[in-house]
């Protein structure tokens, strides 16, 4: 409730300030969207200190404390004063807006154009500090009443992230679930100033690169595009990542042409390739129906252009399943 009040307050103040963004109702609906998406009970990453963090970090810490009931973290009382927090948030958003405008003159995302065009390998997510963990949300089937647990923390020496937990495929007794047992780590959607949703543009790359160390379990990598449109709410592109296990770091290269399309959890008959210019988030899911503890250590996640890979899309549509595509 306090969250909504603060957002509304913020919206009221912003209404009177001139800004290049769209009109007020659009802003309010965007905030409402952010509220509703944050009420989906993500399991908060452990090891977070939610106190003394500015702007949206503060907000997230606030809703984590309301929502994360299963992490036994010590109850820290941060010194929160609403006015100060709102002022900090406003200042932060304006600073980001200023950076955005200034960076637009330098080039895309603040880097000179020739650097962006010639880039052939890019590190998108790395895990070298606690703030890198904040870009990820960790969920499990606890949200539907299951018993899997999953936690995300920094690995040894702050050089990698460790996602670990226990998978339990015990079906929750709510009368409507037939199966259970999944854990997922999803990246947060990148936001610009005033919480405007941004997207990643990977159109010049063609392979996803992950440096991981697992325990032999098969994971699924899911890429989601912009999910604001209601038809796209449950659509994602997925592929499998097989870990080897063992003490050696494993490099996983998945070309984007291998991702298949699925909607509401089912593979669809009509397949089309993943278009890389508006990617919202990426996620890793473990749901291999085997109960027990698991772990996955991630060093970094990047995208690069594999010059040896020329395939555009790996799956053909079949006329038996989709006669309308072949008329």
């Amino acid at each position: 409730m306090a969250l909504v009040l603060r957002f509304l307050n913020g919206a009221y103040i912003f209404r009177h300030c001139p800004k290049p963004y769209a009109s007020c109702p659009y802003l309010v609906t965007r905030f409402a969207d952010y509220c509703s998406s944050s009420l989906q009970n993500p399991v908060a990453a452990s090891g977070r200190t939610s106190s003394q963090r500015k702007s949206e970090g503060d907000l997230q810490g606030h809703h984590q404390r309301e929502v994360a009931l299963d992490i036994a973290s010590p109850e820290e009382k941060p010194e929160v004063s609403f006015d100060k927090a709102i002022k900090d948030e406003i200042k932060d958003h304006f600073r980001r807006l200023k950076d955005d405008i200034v960076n637009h003159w330098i080039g895309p995302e603040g880097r000179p154009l020739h650097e962006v065009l010639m880039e052939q390998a890019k590190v998108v997510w790395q895990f070298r500090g606690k703030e890198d963990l904040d870009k990820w949300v960790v969920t499990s089937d606890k949200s539907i009443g299951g018993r899997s647990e999953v936690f995300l923390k920094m690995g040894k020496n702050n050089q990698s992230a460790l996602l670990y937990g226990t998978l339990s495929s015990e079906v929750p007794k709510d009368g409507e679930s037939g199966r259970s047992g999944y854990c997922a780590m999803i990246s947060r959607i990148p936001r610009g100033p005033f919480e405007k949703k941004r997207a990643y543009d990977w159109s010049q790359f063609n392979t996803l690169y992950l440096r991981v160390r697992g325990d032999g379990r098969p994971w699924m990598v899911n890429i989601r595009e912009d999910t604001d449109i209601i038809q796209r709410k449950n659509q994602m592109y997925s592929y499998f990542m097989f870990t080897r296990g063992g003490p050696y770091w494993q490099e996983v290269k998945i070309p984007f042409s291998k991702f298949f399309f699925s909607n509401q959890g089912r593979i669809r008959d009509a397949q089309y390739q993943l278009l890389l210019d508006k990617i919202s988030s990426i996620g890793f899911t473990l749901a291999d129906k085997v109960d027990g503890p698991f772990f996955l250590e991630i060093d970094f996640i990047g995208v690069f252009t594999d010059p040896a890979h020329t395939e555009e899309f790996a799956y053909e549509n079949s006329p038996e399943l989709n006669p309308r595509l072949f008329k």
Partner: protein
Amino acid sequence: MSWAQALLLARGISRGWRGICGATVMGSPFPQVPLQAPRGLHCSAAATAAGSSDSWLAPPPPPSEPQKGPTKALAFHEELFQRAPEGTRDKADFVRAVQNFGQQNVHKRGHVDFIYLALRKMREFGVERDLAVYNLLLDVFPKEVFRPRSVFQRMFIHYPRQQECGVAVLEQMENHGVMPNKETEFLLLQIFGRKSYPMLKFVRMKLWFSRFKNINPFPVPRDLPRDPVDLAKLGLRHMEPNLNATVTIYQMPSSTDSTGAAHPAEPHIVGIQTPDQQAALAHHNPARPVFVEGPFSLWLRNKCVYYHILRADLLPPEEREVEEIPEEWNLYYPMQLHLDYGRSGWDDYEFDIHKVEEGPVFAMCMAGAHNQATLAKWIQGLQETNPALAQIPVVFRLARSSGELLAPSSGLEEPPPPPPEGQEEEEDDQQRQHQGQS
């Protein structure tokens, strides 16, 4: 109300009366068909009435067996699956139960419920990955009855409950990774016709299963070996990417007379080492210790095995040897070939990040027990092939069942996290892992 509704109401009332009257009559111990017979609107009323009137003379279902407990009611055909004594349930019993259903009921009444029950019971009998059993179960459906005969029947879901049941059978096949074959296709054709949901699901399974059959770059065989030594060998070969590695069995488990389980004092010890690792260990500075770390978990399909590793810390930058590039002594062909992706100076496929570096791993092993004595035997066995190991101090860092591997605590640019905090976190992990495993 309309005449159709009145008819249905009258039929329902008459059935109810018959049920009450029939409860007092003793008869054969066979179970009775459920109150609302699953007939579609297409069957004639006479057939339904005639069919149900026979059964209403039968008694109510038999009282629940004492081993199930009085509170849980049995499903209708459950006693077909309980003929075998406990502990010896196998495929033959399951097949016999399914065939008995067919023999008892010529008209296959209640086949949908029976199929759902059989799908639930498959796991107990251990036949959930057997295609022949699934085909037998699909055989339970009456043939040619549910096929749509007109375009309208094809448009609307013809016999929806039966189609849902067929899809449920195929879905269980999909969950267990069973690929259907031509017999399944023929059965589905006979039962549901070509334009039905089970047939559509079958086509999808054929397509996607064949696409994803070989995508695992590190395949693990479906039937894992029972013998722990073979399992250890498989696991070690799975983890080690170098094919030159040699697997050595340092100790076989000594079998006892009665149970055949490994003697607790002599568990199996299987180790693996590559020639590169051997060379690295020979060059290792004896002043620096090597660590035996473990146990770490490795999952092979649905079995978890644990392994230990022998590794050393990363050398600090000043002590690292610079590799000398020898001058080219062979003018006919190059002795070292570096084939990179880059075409020339403008191509750069390297990531702009400092990858995580960890100390070298010298050997790995899987042992039956995770105590220091067993691992000491492994080290002794290793000393036969690596005589340099005799001079190097070995430190045992055991009793960590958390998933992560220890990174070297020194020799990197960033300062390590404070140790008591790290250990506390690991103890929490350990407790959680124990709770997860127990």
